[in-house]
C-alpha cells in the first residue's frame, strides 16, 4: 500500500473514489480501471443512465477486445441504448473506428467490414459487432444466424438487459417470464411476461457449430475480460452474451447493478459457461446457490410477485424451477468449482 509515487503516473479516465483509491495501491494490486494498459475505447461523458450495466459491460468488453487485437479494432453497433447514449451528434464517446447502420443489421454490416478487410489482406484489424438483446435476439436475429452460418471473422457481443430499454422498456424475446414491461404489464391473471423460456441465443449460437460461444456477466468482469480476450484469439464467428442489468427497466437501484447481476448468476438463472464448436467446455460453478427470491426481490419488475397480501408463490416456484433446471443442465453445483 506504499510507494505508489515511484510508479509512472496513471491516466485516469474513470472518475470515482474507487479508482482514486488505486493511487494508494502499488501497480500490481491496482484495480483494472486504472491500469496503464487500459485502452479506454469508450470514454466518459456518454449519456448512459446511472448504474447502466450496458455501459459497464461494453467498456470492459471493447477494451478487452482492443487489448487482444493490439488496438486494431473496428466496432459495428446496432441501434439501441449503447448507440444512442454514446453518439449524440456532434459528440462521440468512441475512441475506435465505429459504425452504426441500423437496428437489425449489425451482424451483416460486420460481415461486410470483415470481407473488406479480408480482400485488402489486412490481417491485423479485427471486427466486433455489438447490440442489445432486441437487436440480437429479435430484429437482427436473421442476420446473426447468417453471420454464424458463414463463420465470418466477427466477434458478436450481445448486451442482454432483457427488454427494449431504449424505447421505454417493452418486451423482447429475452424478457424473462413474469417480468413487468411496458407491453407486459403486471395486471390480470398472468401478470407480466407470459411463461416461456424466451430465445436462448447462446445455445442457438452453439447449434451453428461456431468456434466459440460464451456467456458473461458484469458481475464478473475478470471472467468477462478473459472470455473476450479468448474469443479474440480465435478466427471465425464468435458470440458472447453478456448479462447487463438495467436499473431503469428492471427497477433496481443504480448502485445494485453488479449485485443484481451477481444474484442472477448465483441463483442459477444466468449460468456462465463457454462452448467451442457447439459443445460446452467450461462452466462457472456456483459456490452457494441463492434462492431466486433474492434476485427477484431487488427488482421492481417482479414486485407483483411479492405483494404482502398475496405473494405469487406459484410463479416464484416456476422461476426457481428454471434456475434448478439450469443448475442440473450445466452441473453448476458440481465438484471442482472453478
Amino acid at each position, binding site marked *: 500500500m506504499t510507494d505508489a509515487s515511484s510508479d509512472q503516473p496513471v491516466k485516469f479516465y474513470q472518475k470515482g473514489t474507487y479508482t482514486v483509491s488505486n493511487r494508494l495501491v502499488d501497480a500490481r494490486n491496482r484495480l483494472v480501471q486504472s491500469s496503464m494498459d487500459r485502452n479506454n475505447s469508450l470514454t466518459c461523458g456518454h449519456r448512459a443512465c446511472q448504474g447502466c450495466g450496458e455501459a459497464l459491460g461494453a467498456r470492459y468488453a471493447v477494451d478487452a477486445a482492443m487489448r487482444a487485437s493490439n488496438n486494431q479494432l473496428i466496432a459495428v453497433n446496432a441501434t439501441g441504448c449503447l*448507440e444512442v447514449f454514446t453518439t449524440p451528434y456532434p459528440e462521440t464517446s468512441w475512441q475506435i473506428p*465505429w459504425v452504426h*447502420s441500423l437496428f437489425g443489421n449489425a451482424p451483416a*454490416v460486420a*460481415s*461486410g*467490414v470483415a470481407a*473488406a478487410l479480408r480482400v485488402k489482406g489486412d490481417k491485423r484489424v479485427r471486427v466486433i459487432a455489438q447490440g442489445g438483446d432486441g437487436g440480437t435476439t429479435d430484429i437482427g436475429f*436473421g442476420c446473426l444466424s447468417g453471420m454464424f452460418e*458463414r463463420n465470418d471473422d466477427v466477434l458478436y457481443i450481445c448486451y442482454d438487459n432483457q427488454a427494449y430499454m431504449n424505447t421505454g422498456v417493452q418486451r423482447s424475446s429475452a424478457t424473462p417470464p413474469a417480468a413487468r414491461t411496458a407491453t407486459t404489464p403486471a395486471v390480470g391473471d398472468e401478470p407480466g411476461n407470459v411463461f416461456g423460456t424466451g430465445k436462448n441465443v447462446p445455445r442457438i449460437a452453439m447449434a451453428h457449430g461456431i468456434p466459440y460461444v460464451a456467456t458473461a456477466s458484469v458481475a464478473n468482469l475478470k471472467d468477462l475480460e478473459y472470455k473476450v480476450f479468448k474469443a479474440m484469439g480465435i478466427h471465425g464467428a464468435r458470440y458472447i452474451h453478456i448479462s447487463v442489468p438495467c436499473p431503469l427497466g428492471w427497477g433496481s437501484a443504480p448502485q445494485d447493478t453488479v449485485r443484481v447481476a451477481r444474484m442472477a448468476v448465483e441463483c442459477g438463472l444466468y449460468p456462465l459457461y463457454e462452448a467451442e464448436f457447439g459443445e460446452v467446455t467450461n462452466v462457472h460453478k456456483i459456490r452457494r446457490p441463492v434462492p431466486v427470491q433474492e434476485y427477484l426481490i431487488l427488482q421492481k419488475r417482479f414486485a407483483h410477485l411479492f405483494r404482502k397480501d398475496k405473494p405469487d408463490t406459484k410463479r416464484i416456484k416456476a422461476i426457481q424451477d428454471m434456475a434448478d433446471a439450469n443448475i442440473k443442465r450445466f452441473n453448476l453445483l458440481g465438484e471442482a468449482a472453478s
Partner: protein
Amino acid sequence: MLKQIEGSQAVAEAIALCRPQVICAYPITPQTHIVEGLAALVKAKQLQGCEFVNVESEFAALSGVIGSSAAGARSYTATSSQGLLFMAEAVYNASGLGLPIVMTLGNRAIGAPINIWNDHSDSMAMRDSGWIQIFAETNQEAVDLHILAFRLAEELSCPVMVCVDGFILTHAYERIDIPTQEQVDAFLPPYEPVQVLDTKEPVSIGAMVGPDAFAEVRYLAHHKQMRALELIPAIGADFERHFGRKSGGLIHHYRTEGAEVVVVALGSVNGTIKDVIDDMRTEENIPIGSISICSFRPFPLAALRESLKDVKCVIVVEKSLDVGLGGAVDPNVRMALRGLAKPLFTAIAGLGGRPITKNSLRNFFKQAMKGELDTPHFLDLDWAVVNRELERGRKTRRSGPIAENILRDIGPGGPLAGGESS
C-alpha cells in the same frame, strides 16, 4: 469486344471490369443471372481481389456492402422487386451514410399478387431514398451505365442504382460491346473513400442526429443530387471520349428536332416507342419524337423543360402506378413543364409485364394528339374484367381474392391470347 451475350451476363462482366472488392448477393428473379455470373467469375479467379459473400437476405446483402463500403472497399449488390423493398431500410441508410455503393436493380413488379415480370414499381418505391437512379434503355447502355455508375458514385460519395428492365433486358441476348480492362481502368480510378473505418484515424460513422442538424443533413443529400445533375453529363462526355460511344447523360433525344409531339419514357420501352415514331413519321408524316430519361434521380427538370418548351403535346409512357394519384413519373414531367400550359397525357403501361405493343402505343399517341384522353390512361386495360370484378364486389361482401377471381373469369383465353396486337 463485340459479343452475342445475355444482358445479365454482360452486366456481370462489366461489373467485373470495374474491379469490385466486395459483392454481397441474395437471389431474386430476374436479378439472378447477374450474381450467378459474378459468382462464377470470382470462383474461377477471373475476378480477383473480390470477396463474394452469399448472404441470407436482401436486407443483409445491402447491409453487408454498407459495412464493406464503410471499410473502404468498392462494393456492389443487385436485387429486384420484393428484394429492394426488403432492403428498403438499408437503402435509405446507405445514402444517408454517403456510401458509394452500386446496385443493379432488375426492375420487376411488386406483389401481391406475386408477379415476377417487369415494371418500374420497385425503383419508384425507392425514388426518394437519396440514391441516384439511372435507367438503361438497351443492354449496351446497361453495361456502360454500370461503369459510369462507379465513377459517379465515388466522385459524389453517393450510392447509385442502375435500373435494368427485368427479362426484357436482363434475359435478352444481344450484340454487346464489352469494354477491355485497360479501357475501364483508364476511365475508373481505384476507389478512394472519403470517410473510412480506419484504426489509424478512428471516426464514428452513423451517429444519432437530433433536430439541430437533421434538416441540414437532408439538405446536403439534396445538394449532392443537384451536383449530380452537372456531373452526370460531364462523366457521360468523358465516357464518350474513352469508349467512343454515347451512354448515360441525363436524357436522350430521338427525332425531337421540329417535333410537335414528344413522348417521354424510362428504360427499354423506348425501343418500341422509337419504332412507333419511325412508323408514324414515315407512314403518316406526323412530327413526333421521344425523350428517354436516363437519370430519374436526380430528375433533370431544366434539361427536360428546355427540350419540351416548343412542343405542342407531351406524352408520358410509364410502367409504374402511384396508386391514388396516377403515374409516378407523370408529376415529375409536369413539374418540368410548370407554367407552360401544355397538354400532357400519361399512359400507365406494361404493369406486371403486360406487353406494350406498337399498335397500342400508336393508338394511344393518336388519341392523345387529338386531346381525347383522360389521364392517366391505362393502356390495354380490359374494362370487361375490371367491371365484372367491381360488380362482384358490389353484390357480395365475400367475393374472394381479386387476382384469383379475375384469373378464373378470364380462363384460358385471356386478354393476352387475343389476336389484335401486332
